[in-house]
C-alpha cells in the first residue's frame, strides 16, 4: 500500500490505514440554468477511507456524485484522479477508471433478475466478442461461468441468495437497495459512491447495510463515498465528512469536528444531535 504516513486525519479511528489522495476535486461549480447546484467546492478523497457527504435536501450532494462519475459536467473546476487531471468524462469512462455508484432513486434494471442485474456489473471485465457469445462456444461459456462465480460471491456476501432469480421490479424497496449495491460491487471498483443507501430501512436493516459497507471497505480496500441523512450512521462509520449547504461547502473534517461545527448545526443537524 502507499505511504499512509502523511497525516491522514482520521487514520487513527478504527485502526485502518488511509492512502494518498485518490480523487481531488478543486473549485467545482455546477449550474443548471439559473440553479446553482454547486458553487466552488473543493475537497479530496483518500484511498480506503469512508468519506461522507451530508447536507440538507437540495444541497447538491447527489449532484456532486454525478460530477464525480461523469454524469454531470461542471462548468468550472478540476478533478484530479490519482494526480492526473480528468478531461472530458463520460460515465462509462469513469466506470473504466474504477468508479462505481448506487443511486438515490433506485436505478436498477427493472426487467431483469437480481442475478442479471449484478452480472451487468461484470460487463467491463467480460472480453468475449459478440460472435463468441452468439455461438456460446467454449470461451464465452467459460467466461460466463467464471463471472457467475464472482457474482455468487457477492450474492452470498449481501445475503440475497433467496431472491437471486426474482425480477427486481417486484422486490421491496430495501432489497432493491441491496441489489443496487451488489451491482456496484460487482464492478470491483476502487471508489464506490453510495447515494443514500439506507433510506427507507429500519434500524436492523441499516445495521446490516453498515456492516456490508464496512466489510467492503475492510475486505476489498475500496474507497467509499457515502451520502446519508441518518446521522447516527454517518457519524459512526465515516472517517471524514464534507457538509454542503445550498451548493456551498460549509464544513469538512472528522465526524467529531463536523458535529461541533456551528454552521453545520444551524444548517443541518439541529440541536438534537
Amino acid at each position, binding site marked *: 500500500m502507499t505511504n499512509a504516513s502523511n497525516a491522514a486525519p482520521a487514520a487513527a479511528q478504527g485502526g485502518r490505514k488511509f492512502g494518498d489522495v485518490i480523487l481531488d476535486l478543486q473549485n467545482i461549480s455546477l449550474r443548471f440554468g439559473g440553479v446553482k447546484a454547486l458553487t466552488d467546492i473543493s475537497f479530496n478523497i483518500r484511498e480506503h477511507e469512508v468519506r461522507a457527504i451530508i447536507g*440538507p435536501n437540495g444541497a447538491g450532494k447527489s449532484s456532486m456524485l454525478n460530477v464525480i462519475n461523469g454524469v454531470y459536467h461542471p462548468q468550472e473546476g478540476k478533478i484530479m484522479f490519482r494526480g492526473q487531471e480528468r478531461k472530458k468524462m463520460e460515465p462509462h469512462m469513469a466506470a473504466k477508471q474504477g468508479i462505481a455508484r448506487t443511486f438515490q432513486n433506485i436505478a436498477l434494471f427493472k426487467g431483469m433478475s437480481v442475478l442479471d442485474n449484478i452480472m451487468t456489473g461484470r460487463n467491463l471485465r467480460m472480453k468475449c466478442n459478440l460472435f463468441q457469445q452468439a455461438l456460446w462456444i467454449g470461451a464465452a461459456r467459460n467466461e460466463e461461468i467464471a463471472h457467475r462465480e464472482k457474482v455468487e460471491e457477492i450474492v452470498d456476501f449481501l445475503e440475497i441468495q433467496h431472491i437471486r432469480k426474482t425480477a427486481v421490479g417486484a422486490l421491496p424497496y*430495501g432489497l432493491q437497495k441491496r441489489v443496487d449495491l451488489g451491482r456496484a460491487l460487482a464492478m470491483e471498483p476502487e471508489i464506490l459512491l453510495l447515494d443514500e443507501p439506507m433510506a*427507507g430501512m429500519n434500524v436492523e*436493516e441499516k445495521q446490516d447495510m453498515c456492516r456490508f459497507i464496512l466489510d467492503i471497505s475492510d475486505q476489498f480496500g475500496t474507497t467509499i463515498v457515502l451520502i446519508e441523512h441518518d446521522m447516527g450512521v454517518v457519524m459512526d462509520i465515516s472517517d471524514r465528512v464534507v457538509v454542503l449547504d445550498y451548493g456551498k461547502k460549509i464544513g469538512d473534517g472528522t465526524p467529531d469536528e463536523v458535529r461541533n461545527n456551528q454552521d453545520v448545526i444551524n444548517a443541518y443537524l439541529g440541536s438534537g*444531535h
Partner: protein
Amino acid sequence: MNAPNSAFLSVNNIEVIYNHVILVLKGVSLSVQEGSIVALLGGNGAGKTTTLRAVSNLLKGERGDVTKGSVEYKGERVEALTPADLVKRGVVQVMEGRHCFGHLTIEENLRTGAYTRTDGKAAVEETLEKVYNYFPRLKTRRNSQAAYTSGGEQQMCAIGRALMAKPKLVLLDEPSMGLAPLIVEEVFEIVKDLNTKERVSFLLAEQNTMVALRYADFGYIMENGRIVMEGAAKDLATNEDVKEFYLGLSGEGRKSFRDIKHYRRRKRWLS
C-alpha cells in the same frame, strides 16, 4: 348500511395477490380511530406499502387484487370506489418513491393536489401558502420542473401535494425517506400539527421506527404479510423485541453502527 362502527378506517382481514399468483398480504386487519396517528411498521417487504395501496385502491395499477376481506371507511365499504372517489371522501395517499409529475413544475404539482376541491380559488391559495410555509424549500423551487429537483425536494412536494387536498385521512408511505433529519422532524411536526389542529388522521408506513413511535398513538408491526404485534405506541416503544430490532437499542442503549456483530440470529415472530 350505517352500522355504527367506531373505527374511522377499518381494514378487515384482507388478502392481496399480485399478478394472480403472488400472495402478499395474508389476512391483515387494522383500524384507525378518527383523529389518531397510526404507525405501520415492519421490515422490507413486509407488505406495508401493499396495505396502504389496498386502502387507497391504488392496487389495480400494480396488477394487484384484494381477494378477501374488506375495507371500511366511516362505515362505508370502499373497495369498489375509485381512488378519485376516495380522495373526494378525504382519503389521500402519499406514495412511496415520490411520484411527482416530472414535467410539471413544483407549483403545478401542488395545485393538481387540489384537483378535487370545490371550495373556491381563495381557499386553495390559502392552502398553497400553508404548504409553502411548511416547506419553504419548495417555495424557492416553485418554478422548477419536479423531475429536476432533488430527492428530498420531491418528497416534500409529494407530501405537500397530498395536503393540498385538505384530507381527512392521509396514508403516508415512508415520509421520512431521503429527508434531512431536520426536515424529518419538521414533517412529523406537521403531521402532529394537522392532527391536533385539524383532526386529520394518519396511517403511516415508516421505517424510521424511532420517530414514528414518538409521534404515533398506536402502532402495528407487520412481517411477511401479517400483523404480528400491535399496541399503543408507548407500549411498543418499550417492548424489548421492538427495541432491539426496530430501534436498535439493546440493553445498554444504542450501539455504534460500527460495532455490529457479523452474525446474529434474529428472532422471528413468525415465518
